[in-house]
C-alpha cells in the first residue's frame, strides 16, 4: 500500500509576522495552494493521503477558501484522505470543517483516538483531532494493535516529554508498534525513529524555516504474521525559498557598495524571498528606508530590517563636550541601554549637532 504524508500546510496563512509585502504574501499563498495541489496530484496515485494537522490556518481562512481545499481533496475520489487536525485548525465551535460538506473521500478524525480500517489494503488508520489550541499531556493511551493489519497513526503534536503542544512521549510512541507514524507540528521535516516521521511544513512558512520542505511518500507491505516492510522518500515542493541575510554597512559610504554586498548573497533575485538585517553604523546620507526602496526594485521580495545606528562616536563626543550641552545631554543617557533611550539619544544629537555646515563635526 502506498501513502502520501503531508502536514502543516497552513493554507491561507497570513504573513503578517514575516512582514512580507502584501503582493508577495498573496502570491506565496497561491504558491502554497499550488504546492498542495502538487501533493493532491501525487496522492491521486496513492492509496491514502495522511494530513497530520494544520492543513489550514483556520482563523485566517475564508469559507470559500476551505471549500476550495475540500474540492481539491474531493477531486481524488479514489484516494482515501485522513486529517487529524492540529493547533491551527483544531475543531473549535466555529471551525469551517464542521460547516462545510466533506468530500466523500475525506475523513476528519474526531477529538478522540479513532481508527478506520480499509479492507482492500488491510490497513487501519488511527487519528486524533485537536479540539482546543493547547494540550499538555497526550489525551489518550495508545490502543493495543492487531498486528495482522498495517497500523498507521496520523497525529499532530510534539514528540517530547514536556510540551504545551501535546507531548507525545517518545518511548511510548515507539513502543506502540505502529507500522508508520505520520506526525505534524514540527515544521522541519525529520525522522524521530524508525517509521516515525515529521513531514515538516509543506512549504517554508517564515524566514526561519530554511532547509527542505515537502511531503513524504511511503510504501508499506505486510505479509501475515510478519512485520511490515517500508520504503520512504521525500519530495520537495516547488515554491520560492525564504532567505534571511545580514549586511553590516559600517564603512560603506554609498548605496551601490551596500547593494553589491547584499546582491552577492542572493542566487535568485526574481524568486527568492529575502529578509535582510542591516547592521553596523550608517554613514551620513545613508537612509535605510530609501535604500530599501531602491533594493525592492531589484528583488522579487525584500523585507528590510534596520538595525543600524547613526554614526556617532559617543565616547569622543562626550570627551570633547563634557562641559557643554552636548556632553551634558549625552550624560543624561549614560547607562540607559534600552532601545527607546538610544533612539532618544540619537534624536537629540541629531538635532543638536549641526550637519553639513562648514566646520561641522
Amino acid at each position: 500500500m502506498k501513502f502520501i504524508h503531508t502536514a502543516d500546510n497552513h493554507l491561507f496563512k497570513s504573513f503578517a509576522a514575516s512582514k512580507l509585502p502584501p503582493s508577495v504574501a498573496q502570491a506565496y499563498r497561491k504558491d502554497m495552494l499550488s504546492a498542495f495541489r502538487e501533493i493532491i496530484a501525487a496522492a491521486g496515485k496513492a492509496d491514502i493521503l495522511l494530513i497530520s494537522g494544520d492543513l489550514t490556518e483556520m482563523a485566517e481562512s475564508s469559507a470559500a477558501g476551505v471549500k476550495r481545499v475540500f474540492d481539491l481533496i474531493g477531486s481524488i475520489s479514489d484516494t482515501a484522505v485522513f486529517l487529524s487536525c492540529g493547533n491551527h485548525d483544531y475543531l473549535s465551535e466555529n471551525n469551517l470543517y464542521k460547516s462545510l460538506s466533506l468530500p466523500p473521500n475525506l475523513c476528519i478524525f474526531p477529538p478522540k483516538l479513532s481508527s478506520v480500517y480499509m479492507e482492500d489494503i488491510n490497513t487501519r488508520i488511527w487519528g486524533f483531532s485537536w479540539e482546543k489550541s493547547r494540550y499538555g499531556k497526550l489525551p489518550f493511551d495508545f490502543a493495543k494493535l492487531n498486528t495482522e493489519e498495517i497500523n498507521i497513526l496520523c497525529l499532530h503534536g510534539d514528540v517530547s516529554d514536556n510540551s504545551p503542544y501535546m507531548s507525545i512521549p517518545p518511548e511510548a510512541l515507539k513502543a506502540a508498534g505502529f507500522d508508520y507514524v505520520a506526525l505534524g507540528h514540527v515544521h522541519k521535516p525529520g525522522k524521530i525513529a524508525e517509521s516515525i516521521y515529521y513531514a515538516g511544513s509543506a512549504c517554508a512558512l517564515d524566514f526561519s524555516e530554511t532547509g527542505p520542505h515537502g511531503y513524504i511518500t511511503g510504501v508499506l507491505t505486510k505479509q501475515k504474521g510478519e512485520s511490515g516492510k517500508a520504503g520512504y522518500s521525500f519530495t520537495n515542493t516547488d515554491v520560492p525559498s525564504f532567505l534571511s541575510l545580514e549586511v553590516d554597512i559600517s564603512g560603506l559610504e554609498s548605496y551601490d557598495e551596500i547593494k553589491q554586498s547584499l546582491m552577492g548573497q542572493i542566487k535568485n533575485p526574481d524568486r527568492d524571498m529575502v529578509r535582510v538585517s542591516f547592521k553596523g553604523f550608517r554613514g551620513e546620507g545613508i537612509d535605510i528606508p530609501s535604500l530599501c526602496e531602491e533594493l525592492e526594485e531589484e528583488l522579487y521580495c525584500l523585507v528590510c530590517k534596520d538595525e543600524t545606528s547613526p554614526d556617532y562616536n559617543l565616547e569622543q563626543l562626550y570627551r570633547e563636550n563634557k562641559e557643554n550641552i552636548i556632553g551634558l545631554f549625552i550624560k543624561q543617557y549614560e547607562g540607559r541601554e534600552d532601545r527607546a533611550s538610544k533612539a532618544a539619544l540619537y534624536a537629540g544629537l541629531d538635532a543638536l549637532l549641526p550637519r553639513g555646515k562648514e566646520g561641522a563635526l
Partner: protein
Amino acid sequence: MKIMKLRMNSFGKFTDKTLEFTPGLNIVSGGNEAGKSTLHKFIGAMFFGMYKQGKKNKLSSEDYLKYFPWYGENYGGSLMMEAGGDPITIVRNFRKNSEKVSIINEASGEDITESFPYDPVAKLPDTSEILGINRYVFENTVSISQMSSATGQALAGEISEMIVNTSLTFTPGVSYRNALNTLSERREKIGTKTQSKTPRGKAEIRLNQLTEELKAAEQIKAENAERYAQIKKAQTELVKNDVRRRALGKKREMSLLAQYAAKYEKFKELTGTLNALQSEISAEIKINEQEYRRYLTCENMLSDAREEYDKLIMDRRIAGEQVASLAEKLEQLKSDKANGENSRADAAVFENAVAKLAEVKEQRRNDQQRGVLEEQYNKSERASRAFMFSFIGLILAAAVFVAIALIGGDKNFYTYSLIEALIGLPCAAGWIYFLTKAQNTRRLFDAVVKKSALEVAYREQIDAFLEKYEAADLRELNEIFDRAAGMEERISELNGQLAAAVQKEKSLMESSESVKAKTEHNSAIMASILRGASCGNSAELRAEYEKIRARDMAVAKHEATLQSAAALLGDMSEQQLQEKARQAQSMGIKPLEFDDYEKTLSEEERDIYEEATRINNQISSLNGAIESSSMKVREISEIAEDISSVKETIAALEEKYAALSDASESIMRVSADIKSDAAAKFNEYVSELLSGLTSGRYSRVFVGEDMEITVRDEQSGNMVALSELSGGTIDQCYFAVRFAVAQLIIPDKALPIFLDDCFVQYDEGRLFNILALLGKVAQSRQILLFTCRRTEQQLLDSLGVTYNLVNLGR
C-alpha cells in the same frame, strides 16, 4: 598653548612654506589671495586631521579635496607649539592610505605619540587632546572671522542667537532653540493619533479602516460558514428526496403492472363483444335496400291512384247531373222565345220616342226661359229708344249753334257745336247696339215656343206604350223589352254548356279507366316483391328490411370495438399485454383502474421534483450569496498583513515620536542647568567688553524672556533693541560676544585666538579701542590677527603695542 612655528610641506597653494610666531600678538599679513584662510585651515587640520570627526566610520572631510596640494606629493606638514611648558611638534601626513601622525617632544627629543589617546576610527592618535576642544569648538570659538551677515537686521539676529545659545547651551554654535525647533518639527512631521493629516494620524485612520474591514471579513466568514452549513443540510434533504424518488419509481412500476392487468381484462371483454357482433354481421337478409325502396314507391303510387280514381268517379256523376239539368232549362227557354217576338217592334218605336223626348228636353233646357227672354227684349227696346232721342236732340242743338255762329258770328259756337256733335256720336252707337240686341232676343223667344209643342207629342206616344205593356214606369218597360231581346242568346249559351258537360263526362270516364289500369300494374309489382322476400305483407317486409339496419349497427360497433382494443393495446402487442398481465398476476397484483392512484403518484412525483428544484435553488442561491459576499471582502490573511504592517508603522512612528520627546525634555533639562550658573557670568563679560569697545557708551546687555537682546545706552539711559543700533556698533557687539565666548568657554586652555579680517568695517576710533583691548589680552594669550591692510600695524605702532609680523606675501 602657543603656536611657535609651522611648516606646510604641501597644502593647497603652499609648498615648503615655514612660518614662525611669537607668544603674544601676531599680525599675519597678506593680500586677498595670499592664503590666509588656507593657513587657518592648515592649523586646524594639524590638530584634527582631514576626516570627519565624531563618527564611527572614517570619512574624509570636504576639506581634504579642497586643500589637496597644487604641487608636490607631501600632503602634510608640521606644527611646533609650546604646550604645558614643553615644545611639542606634531608631524602629519594627510594623504589617504599613508596618513600618519607623530608627536615629538622637542625638549627631550622623544616621540610621545603613544601617550596620546588612540582614535580607533581614524586609526590615528587623537591630537585634539592637546587643544582639549573639538574641531567644531575650535572653528566657532577660538577662530573669529568677519561677520557673515551683511545687513544690520540680520546681524542683530545672529548676535541674539549667539548670545542666547551661549547662555543656554554654553556651546558656541550649538543652537538650543534650533535643536528644540528641529525636534518639535520632527515630532510634528510624525504627528499624533488624532491629527488626521499626519503620518501617525493617517496610520490610525488606516488602522481603523482595516479593523473595520477585518470585522466585516470575519462577519462574512461566519455568514458563509452558516451558508455552507445550510448547503450541507440542503444536500442531506436532497438525498432524502432522492430516496423518495426511488421509492416512487418502484410504486409506479407496480401501478403500471396493475394497470396492464386491468387493461388485459378489458381487452378480453372487447374480444368477446367482437365475436358476438360477428354473428350479427354474417346473418342472411332476403331483401335489399333497392327492392325495398321500390316496394315503398309502388305502395305510395297505388294509394295515390286509388284516391284519384275515387275522385274521378265522383266528378263523373256530377257531370251527368249537370247535363240533365241543362237540357231541361233549354226546353223552357225555347217556349219563352215565341212570346218575345211581338214586343220587339214596339220596343223600337218606344226607344225612338224616348230618344226624341230626351233630345227635345235637352234643347229646351239650353234656351232662356220665355219670361226672361221677354224682359230682355223690352229692356233692349227701351234703351234703344232713349239713345235715339238723345242723338236727335244733340244734332239739333249742334245745328242751332252752327246757326248762331253763322248768324251771330260768334265763332265760339262752332266750337260748341263741334262739342255737341262729338257727344252725339256715342249716343248714336248706343241706339244701334240696343236695337240689334232687341231683335236677337225676339228670335230666341219664337224658337222656344215651337219646341214646347214637340215635347208634348212624344210624351203622349210613350204613355201609350206604358199602358200597352202594363209598365208602371219607363224603367220597368225597358226591362220588359230587354228580357225579350236576351232569350235567344241564353239558349245558345245553354247549348254550349250542355255540349261541354257531355264532353267532360266522357273524358272523366276515360281517365278513370286509365287510373284503374295503373293501379293494377303497381299491385302486380308489389306482389312480386313480397313474393321475392317471402313476405306475406308490408309489415313482414318492413321487419325483414329492419334487419339491414341492425347489421349496419353491428358493423359500426365492431369497428369501434376494434379501435378501443387497439387503443387499449397502444404500442404493445396483445402478447405483450398478456405477458404483463401474467406478470402482475404472478406478483399478486390485482388488476386495477389506476386513474386516481396515478394521479396521486404524479402529484407525489411533482412534489418530489419541486422539492428537488427548491433545494437545488436554495443551494445555488446560497452559493451565489457566498460568492458575492466573498467578492466584497479581501482575504482575512491579507487584511491581517495590512493591519500588522500599519501597526508596525505606528509603533515605529510612536517610538520615534517618543525618542524626539525624550530628547527635547533632556535638552531642556540640561540647558536649565547651564543657564543658571554660566549665563550670568557670560552676560557680565560681554557687557564689560562692549563697554570697553564703545568707550563706555553701551554698558549692559540684557537677554529678555522672549530672547530679545537689548543694550543700555548710557547717554540717554534708555534700553535700546540690538537691531536699532548702528552697523558699526552691531559689529562691535558681535565681536564682544565672540570674544567673550572664546575667553570664557575655554578659559583654562588659553588657546590662541584667530582673528580673520574682523575689523575691515571698523572706523578708526573703534579700531583703536579694539586694538587696545587686544594688546591687553595678548599679554596672556596668543593672538593671530589675519589682515590684508596695514592700518592695524600703524595703529598698534602708535599705541606702542609690540607684535610679531608674519608676512605671507602675495
